[in-house]
């Protein structure tokens, strides 16, 4: 039941925050903070009690929902979703803290939306019923739309529209695929259900599998995003308030990656194997193109947004490598990117709060004014370019090693991305903190609240870089299970093919 309570606590907190917003401005912040801390602490206590991570679900809750259609409320937790939840609650707390001074209008409604988005994300990470999954997948959209549309910057309306329409259109394609899978499974077994576990072994022809998978892919690749479908991302990230950018980059994008691992790989083993080369190419294009565009931006938030495109390229490259090494890398990348890019967005937010611009050409020489902020900026730029000792290094190295096993060329090309990352990361530092002072900005260094946020993020990213083993241990059984599910089917398939060709050759021989 803990899983349902985690979501219910968030929803209750959301309503309370909204109502309390009528009384004063501090109460909603406190309520939201308390809500998230309760969830985080509860989860950590649970984590500490869990002795061993096996390949079974750690918690599995199942109830009927809409019986007529075989829809259930099915939540389950394994190592992968556990890590994602920890990230969600941690960054949720951070996003409340960074909005403390930034958001001053409609505070109650802001925190209502914030908690609702987080509830949607938690739901996505926990749902094992495809209908329920889609339900939460869509649930995140409306509050995120409001977050961008009400508290965003100048072009917020257009960005909010773009975000909503892109995700909704691709989500509907996924919905059609979910229904198609439901019918394919129902027709072959007579059991009409949306339950993930039961749908896992669905038999379908290669072409059907490919068609159904493409609907899922559409949704996940838009969210991730992959290059031809990334158009919504820079606008949404740039126009959103800092907390919105943080949640978008650090959490929403991860739902796409999570979807790939949780649904695409085990549900469509054969189809996803045949899609793998294209997937890896898309990944490499994303890495290089994202990096190139990031280098060309002058708007700091837009620049960071494009680095996300580049970093997420590694995720898709890793996912379609189908080996444990790459998958461990993907998990670390999801966490490390969430932390490092989130931190950069926070820095951009703090800068524009102080000097009211996001144009890096107008900045320069800010180190003198704000050395602490400069140091933090330095650390996270280094994280972004993959410096050893920080989480992103582990992630990208593992993904490249894993990808090397399955596709050498793609792995080599992706390595160029590391150089490109160095270019844009150093450009951030050069333009913002070093260089010539363009204008004599009056600005303070970070306040104690901001220092706390920054230091806690630094601790996490460095922890990941120096000692990632606990994360490996937690994620390993879940990842192995996914891979087993995938490999079993593909091997079966290739054996079948082999038998067929053997038979054919024998027949030919006897003729």
């Amino acid at each position: 039941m803990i899983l349902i309570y985690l979501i219910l606590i968030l929803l209750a907190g959301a309503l309370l925050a909204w109502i309390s917003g009528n009384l004063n401005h501090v109460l909603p912040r406190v309520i939201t903070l308390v809500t998230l801390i309760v969830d985080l602490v509860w989860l950590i206590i649970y984590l500490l009690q869990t002795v061993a991570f096996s390949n079974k679900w750690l918690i599995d809750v199942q109830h009927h929902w809409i019986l007529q259609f075989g829809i259930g409320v099915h939540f389950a937790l394994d190592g992968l979703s556990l890590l994602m939840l920890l990230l969600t609650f941690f960054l949720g707390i951070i996003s409340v803290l960074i909005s403390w001074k930034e958001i001053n209008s409609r505070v109650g409604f802001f925190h209502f939306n914030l908690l609702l988005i987080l509830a949607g994300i938690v739901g996505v990470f926990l749902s094992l019923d495809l209908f329920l999954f889609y339900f939460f997948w869509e649930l995140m959209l409306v509050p995120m739309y409001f977050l961008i549309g009400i508290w965003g910057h100048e072009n917020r309306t257009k960005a909010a529209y773009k975000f909503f329409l892109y995700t909704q259109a691709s989500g509907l394609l996924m919905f059609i695929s979910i229904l198609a899978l439901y019918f394919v499974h129902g027709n072959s077994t007579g059991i009409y259900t949306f339950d993930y576990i039961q749908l896992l072994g669905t038999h379908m022809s290669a072409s059907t599998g490919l068609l159904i998978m493409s609907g899922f892919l559409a949704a996940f690749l838009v969210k991730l995003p992959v290059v031809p479908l990334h158009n919504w991302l820079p606008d949404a990230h740039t126009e959103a308030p800092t907390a919105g950018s943080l949640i978008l980059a650090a959490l929403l994008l991860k739902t796409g990656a999570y979807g790939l691992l949780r649904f695409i790989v085990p549900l469509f083993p054969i189809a996803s194997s045949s899609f793998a080369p294209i997937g890896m190419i898309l990944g490499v294009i994303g890495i290089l193109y994202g990096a190139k565009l990031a280098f060309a931006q002058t708007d700091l938030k837009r620049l960071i947004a494009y680095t996300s495109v580049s970093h997420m390229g590694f995720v898709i490259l890793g996912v379609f490598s189908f080996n444990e090494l790459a998958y461990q890398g993907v998990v670390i990348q999801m966490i490390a990117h969430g932390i490092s890019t989130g931190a950069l967005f926070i820095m951009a937010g703090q800068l524009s709060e102080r000097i009211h611009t996001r144009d890096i050409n107008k900045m320069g020489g800010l180190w003198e004014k704000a050395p602490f902020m400069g140091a933090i900026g330095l650390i996270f730029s280094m994280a972004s370019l993959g410096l050893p000792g920080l989480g992103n290094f582990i992630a990208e190295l593992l993904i490249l090693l894993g990808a090397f096993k399955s596709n050498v060329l793609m792995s080599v090309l992706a390595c160029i991305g590391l150089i490109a990352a160095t270019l844009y990361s150093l450009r951030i530092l050069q333009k913002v903190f070093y260089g010539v002072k363009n204008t004599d900005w009056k600005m303070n260094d970070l306040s104690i609240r901001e220092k706390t946020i920054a230091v806690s993020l630094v601790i996490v990213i460095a922890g990941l870089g120096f000692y990632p083993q606990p994360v490996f241990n937690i994620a390993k059984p879940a990842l192995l299970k996914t891979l087993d599910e995938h490999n079993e089917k593909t091997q079966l398939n290739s054996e079948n093919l082999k038998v067929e060709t053997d038979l054919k050759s024998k027949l030919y021989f006897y003729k």
Partner: protein
Amino acid sequence: MTETDFLSLSPFLILALAPIIIMIVISIYRNYEVVFGFSVLSIVAAIVSIVFILPVIPHSIAPLFLVDRYSLFFITIILISALLVIFLSYDYLKQLDGIREEYYIILFTSTLGASLLAVANHFILFFLGIETLTLSLYILIAFEKTKDSSIEAGIKYLVLASVSSAFLLFGMGLIYITFGSMQFSVLEIAIRHLNQLPLLFIFGVGMMLVGIGFKLALVPFHMWTPDVYQGAPAPVSSYIATVSKGAVMAVFIRFFFNIRGFDNQSIFIVISGIAVLSMFVGNLLAIQQKNIKRLLAYSSIANMGYLIIILLTGSDKGIQAAIFYLITYFITTIGAFGVISLLSTKELEAENIEEYRGLFWKKPWIAIVMTFCLLSLAGIPITAGFIAKFYLILEGMKAGLWILIFSMIINSVIGLYYYLRVITSMFSVANENLLPSVSVLGKVTLAFVTISILVLGVYPGWLIDFIVKYAIL
């Protein structure tokens, strides 16, 4: 007529008696509150009477009436919607000058016509019902005599509805000369043994489609919709969008399934074409609208386009999906028009999207109701509209109607765009226009609508059970 006959017709008798009593009451003592209260009581009495009919169904009063579970289900929906419309009309009419008690008389006669359609098993009753309904609607649409747009809308509806009725009659005539009967059940038996439908019969169905298409506002018979929705008083617009369309849909589904229209290739293609056209035209034209009543009019065209997909599934489950969709559509449409009518004043109808700017910061609860209604129309989860759309897509896919389902998906995205536009303006910075205060009755109605949208969106199982049990042809 036997006792059972009387019993099974009791809702109609109540609906027919109520306006006569109101007329007498008005001639003795004209009082708005009294008439309103009596109307509410009569509708409630009609709803309650349905409970007493349940033991005697299915009951057929040959040749015109067929009172079965399906028709009673539709009558219940129609009566509940009419009740909600009456609640919303209370404030809207109260602020008008001049006579307004007669509004309720006309509302009763049109509801009577609508309910007759639900029990129709014969062309005569079909036509009778539809004419009773539309004749009353002319008056309702043009009820605000001082407004030019209201009169214009009334006349437009009058002229076009007459033309469409002519088509409907012609179609009925053609079918009658083919099979020599006007009873649905007789037609069903006559058709069952034929390998191929006679050309004249198909032609007749085509003619009837024109008439029905007009009433349902399907493309290309939709031209009247935006003007009439805009000109009519807001509660009347909601009445046209829900009760009138729902009743026509009830008889159309019964007729279409009796003649098994989905089995015929050419009828299938025509209906598919109408469905796709309605979706695209409705949604694309809605994008440009600055007037929220016109926007909802175009959205209703698109919604009817989605709904008639279900005719082509040819399955009982399809009908159930259609009924679920209709119920959610009724609730959301009444909610949306309810907001419009509650925000309207004597001088100014709250119909420009611009007037909704910043509504959320001035009247948060009303804005939330509107937001939920629009999200439900767009089919976003946790609203009833999502489950309804899901149900429709599910049944459509089961029947293999891929093209229709995909155009529905594309249109859902287009639709989302203009619903979001209204929502965005409600949540943007407020301007300085004054809004009327909303009465308790209006608040209660809107609260009921919103709670229904949420309940059906999160926990729809009980209603589906109920539909599966009762709404069978």
